[in-house]
């Protein structure tokens, strides 16, 4: 898919860079409001509804009044929409029982709205390290609920995921990202099932050096993920650019075949990589371009 990062002959367009309003620098609430049409944003289960996590205080962790997930309803490019924004500054965007339930319930309500005649689209702003460790099993359960609700909604309406940065999207919520109809990333954004530090602590520094930023972005970064088809659109970190990319993605409607259904294609790509001798990240797109499912492969 076309890149929306303004670049000519591989050169960065510095005028566009200097004129932009950074999306990354906004907090979750401001991001959600910035995406929606002016004056249409209305927050559900806001801070004054006080549905914070009951599990943090007993463990000596200060809770947040919205539990780190901001749900905002409104209008996006003229269509009813719900934006679910994860606050990366609170507990690394970790998903707990309450924040996960907020996300899952708002997606389920969007499903109901669609069935009752209000075609509502969903946008997920995924800046999260995955399940919040203090609420391990409950967090996992709600991530499963989020995924189930995403699967139900995406049959009816497009779901747009945005990974802008700087946290990135890892763990259980990276599975949710993989279910989205369209995934939009910036160069600063990262996407991976296991985060670099998790891989290093589990498999050793020879497997993945979590202090090597260049390596991390070469593998998990937005440019690599869009270049290898694991995400769809690369945008500049700019409010207008992100908003137009989201509206355009919504306009494309429900894809014929979702990324997560193209099993044969992904299996062929996995077969093309030898884990004992992995390709250089820069060569992966080329390796995968030649990895097509064999004729008659019905696995």
């Amino acid at each position, binding site marked *: 898919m076309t890149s929306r990062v303004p670049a000519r002959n591989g050169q960065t367009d510095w005028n566009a860079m200097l004129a932009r309003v950074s999306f990354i620098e906004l*907090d*979750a609430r401001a991001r959600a409001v910035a995406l929606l049409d002016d004056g249409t944003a209305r927050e559900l289960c*806001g*801070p*004054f509804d006080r549905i914070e996590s009951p599990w943090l*205080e007993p463990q*000596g*962790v*200060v*809770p*947040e*009044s919205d539990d780190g997930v901001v749900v905002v309803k409104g209008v996006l490019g003229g269509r009813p929409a719900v934006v679910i924004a994860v*606050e*990366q*500054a*609170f507990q690394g965007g970790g998903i707990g029982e309450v924040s996960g339930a907020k996300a899952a319930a708002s997606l389920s309500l969007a499903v109901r709205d669609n069935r009752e005649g209000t075609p509502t689209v969903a946008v997920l702003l995924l800046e999260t390290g995955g399940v919040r460790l203090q609420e391990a099993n409950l967090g996992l359960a709600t991530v499963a609920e989020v995924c189930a609700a995403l699967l139900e909604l995406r049959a009816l309406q497009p779901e747009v995921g945005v990974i802008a940065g700087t946290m990135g999207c890892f763990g259980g919520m990276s599975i949710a990202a993989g279910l989205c109809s369209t995934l939009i990333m910036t160069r600063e954004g990262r996407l991976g099932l296991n985060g670099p530090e998790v891989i290093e602590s589990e498999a050793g520094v020879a497997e993945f050096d979590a202090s090597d930023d260049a390596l991390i972005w070469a593998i998990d970064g937005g440019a690599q993920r869009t270049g290898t088809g694991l995400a769809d659109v690369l945008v500049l970190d700019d409010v207008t650019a992100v908003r137009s990319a989201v509206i355009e993605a919504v306009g494309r409607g429900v894809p014929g075949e979702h990324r997560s259904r193209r099993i044969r294609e992904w299996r062929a790509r996995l077969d093309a990589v030898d884990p004992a001798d992995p390709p250089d990240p820069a060569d992966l797109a080329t390796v995968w371009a030649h990895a097509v499912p064999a004729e008659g492969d019905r696995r």
Partner: protein
Amino acid sequence: MQTLKFEFPADRPAARRTHVGVVGSGDLEVLMTPEATGTARVRVRTSVDGFDTVWRTVLERFFARHRVAGSFELNDSGATPGVVTLRLRQAIEEGRE
């Protein structure tokens, strides 16, 4: 984690409730709800233990200058006194209409 409670005399009720800030490292969130009680009731939940005196001094100074009546809920993740004062000022300014 530590929970602290303070009360200060106040005579100017805020016009409306406001929420500012994030419970992120070095920052805090403030939930301000107007109350016509003649006091500023402050509840602080902070991730850093043992700074009771500093909290009292910072809040005393703030509410001596801005006598805004209401309940103030502060969820703190290690904010410095300067950041605490800025967030409180932001809250009362947004609550002014």
